[in-house]
């Protein structure tokens, strides 16, 4: 990672991103909302989220980690892990 991730900023940006891709209102995007069951995010939307994260934060999310991204909280945890925090 070339830059440190500011988690509060990341959380806000991630909520906006997930709201946009899932076409839900920002109020529905809770940290523990389940992507598939609660937000209707399918595998392609999930990949769109992954691609957006990679581009925005200049990180690489391994393919094996994608099935573990089942909520925003999972995504924060993963971002923390791959940025070495």
């Amino acid at each position, binding site marked *: 990672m070339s830059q440190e991730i500011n988690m509060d900023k990341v959380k806000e940006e991630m909520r906006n991103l997930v709201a946009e891709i899932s076409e839900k209102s920002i109020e529905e995007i809770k940290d523990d909302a389940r992507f598939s069951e609660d937000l209707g995010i*399918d*595998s*392609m*939307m999930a*990949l*769109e989220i*992954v*691609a957006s994260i*990679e*581009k925005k934060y200049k990180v690489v999310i391994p*393919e094996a980690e*994608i099935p573990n991204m089942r909520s925003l909280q999972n995504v924060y945890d993963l971002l923390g892990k791959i940025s070495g925090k």
Partner: protein
Amino acid sequence: MEGIWDINKIQEILPQRYPFLFIDRVVSIDEKEGKVTCLKNFTANDYFFTGHFPGKPVVPGVIMIEAMAQASIIGFAAIKPEVASKHPTYYLGKVEAKFRRAVTVGDQLVIEVKKEKIVNNAGVVTAVAKVNGEVAAEAKIMFGVILESHR
């Protein structure tokens, strides 16, 4: 950059056939960068010009999208040859496209596809289709890949 695919090699990867095969040649493949460049030549004999439009041939936007989507499959196959060789079903998930200029008889469409993220069962790519170096259409394309045995 290396590798040139002719129409026979293209048909080993793309499941589409006449009248819905819209890639004529693959001119470059860069697996490392996740980039491919494909060509499609439009001629007066193309069937859709009969109706789109009589006396004023314009390649339909949906066909431009289809050509970019087929180029995306070539891009997927370059990065995931082991999946592509099993002849999976490819389906479009979402397309965000912009059209910049009309494409007509005699135009050669040069389609450049670059991966954003490709995994075994899906892909996100950007595609740019140019004629004479001028952008005719561009799109962000999301697609899914299903192996028959997984259905």
